[in-house]
Every structure is written in C-alpha cells, then in structure tokens.
C-alpha cells in the first residue's frame, strides 16, 4: 500500500467516524431536554454536513487506489444529494406529523417526503450500474448489491418469524434501506476477502 493510499484511507476513516459520532450524538440529544422535536431535530443537519468532506476524502481514496471513475464521481454526488433530500424530507414529515392531528390522506402524503430521498438513492445506484463503463468496478458493485439484497431478505424473513412468534418487537419497514446500505458495506468487505 502506498503512502498516498494509506493517508487517504485514514482520512476517509476519520471523516466516517466523525459522521457516525455526530449522528449518534445528535440522536442522543433528542432524548434530552436540550433538543425538542420536531424542529430541534434540525440539529441532525449539522453532522449531515460532514458527509461533504467524507465524500471528498472517499474520492481521494478512490483516486489513490486507482478505482476512481467519472461514473463513481457522479454516483457520489447523487447519493449525497439524495441523503440530504432524505433527511430534510424526514425532518419536515416528522415536524408536520408531530401532533398527529393530520388526516390519513395528508399522513400518506407526508410519508412520501422521506421516501423521495430513498428513491433518489435507488436511482443513483441504478444509474451507476448503467453508466459505469469499467466492467470490473461494475461487477464489484453488483456483487456487493447481491450480498446486501441477500442479507436484507434473510434478515427480514428471520425478523418476521421472530415477530410472529412473539420473540422480537415489530420493526418499522423504513429500516429496510439503512439495512440494505449496511449490507452494501458488508458486500464490499466480502469483495475484498474474496480477492485477498
């Protein structure tokens, strides 16, 4: 591993850690009196800004590792935009729903707000797989997506039976995308292990 690869990996890791700490910290704040929902939840936007240097560090790492491509750069920007759309949609939907006095049709419309961001993420991934002209990078992404999908289906089925048998509590369906995203990360690790 070259010095450039090593330092860019370190920077990406540090920005990832800062993002995770920031999101966890603001999440914890919601359980205190310092931040009151719904508008106090806007504090979550602050750690979201850390995604910008994180994406830049990640792109430097990709360039140093020789895995950068124009399609990957477009994917990163689209995912960034979709993530912000998701969080803003989520905050607005929760803020408007907080007193639970809205009618069911309005509640259904509010549910669409964070979903638009999710559509954006799925669209970004679909565009990447279509636009990536480097077949090796494309295969790696598709492999990771297969691992993520497999994990999601297996976890969902298992949790469904746990719920049916009264062992585990019900989990809202919006956790699907975060679980799939985690599976994507695991899929990339699987790629590395298979090629080691």
């Amino acid at each position, binding site marked *: 591993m070259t010095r450039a690869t090593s330092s860019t990996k370190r920077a990406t890791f540090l920005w990832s850690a800062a993002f995770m700490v920031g999101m966890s910290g603001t999440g914890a704040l919601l359980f205190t009196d310092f931040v009151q929902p719904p508008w106090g939840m806007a504090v979550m936007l602050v750690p979201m800004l850390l995604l910008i240097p994180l994406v830049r560090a990640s792109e430097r790492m990709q360039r140093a590792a*020789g*895995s*950068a491509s124009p399609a990957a750069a477009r994917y990163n920007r689209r995912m960034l935009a979709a993530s912000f759309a998701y969080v803003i949609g989520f905050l607005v939907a929760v803020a408007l729903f907080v007193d639970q006095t809205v009618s069911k049709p309005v509640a259904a419309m509010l549910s669409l707000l964070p979903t638009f961001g999710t559509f954006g993420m799925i669209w970004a991934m679909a565009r990447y797989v279509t636009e990536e002209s*480097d*077949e*090796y*990078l494309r295969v790696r992404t598709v492999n990771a997506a297969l691992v993520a999908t497999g994990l999601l289906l297996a976890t969902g089925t298992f949790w469904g039976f746990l719920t049916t048998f009264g062992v585990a509590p019900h989990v809202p369906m919006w956790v699907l995308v975060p679980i799939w995203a985690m599976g994507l990360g695991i899929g990339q690790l699987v790629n590395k292990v298979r090629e080691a």
Partner: protein
Amino acid sequence: MKNRLKVLRAERDWSQGDLAERLEVSRQSVNAIETGKYDPSLPLAFRIADLFGLSIEDIFLRDA
C-alpha cells in the same frame, strides 16, 4: 485465468496506470486482471489483444 499481461507490460515499460489509460479502464481493473482475480469480458479481452497486437490466446492461458 493466468495471463501474460505483466510480462507484456514490462516489455513495453508500461506501468499498470499506463495500461489502464490505454484501455480506458481503472488501474484497479488492470491489477485485478493481471493477478488473475478477474477474468475480462470478451470485448475487453479483444481490446487488450488489439493493444498488444496479439491474439487473445497469446495473452490469456487456458486453465490446466
């Protein structure tokens, strides 16, 4: 699949980055193909063969 990419590249004094640029793929792709971790598609194999002025069989070796 084994291949002679590393030797052919060395003969021309090309780095993996040089070859990647000529093939319009990432350096990581060249590394994966060269080390046998990834077998290229037929179109990419033809592009590699054309670049070196050889046939595919002269570059990629059948598994024993």
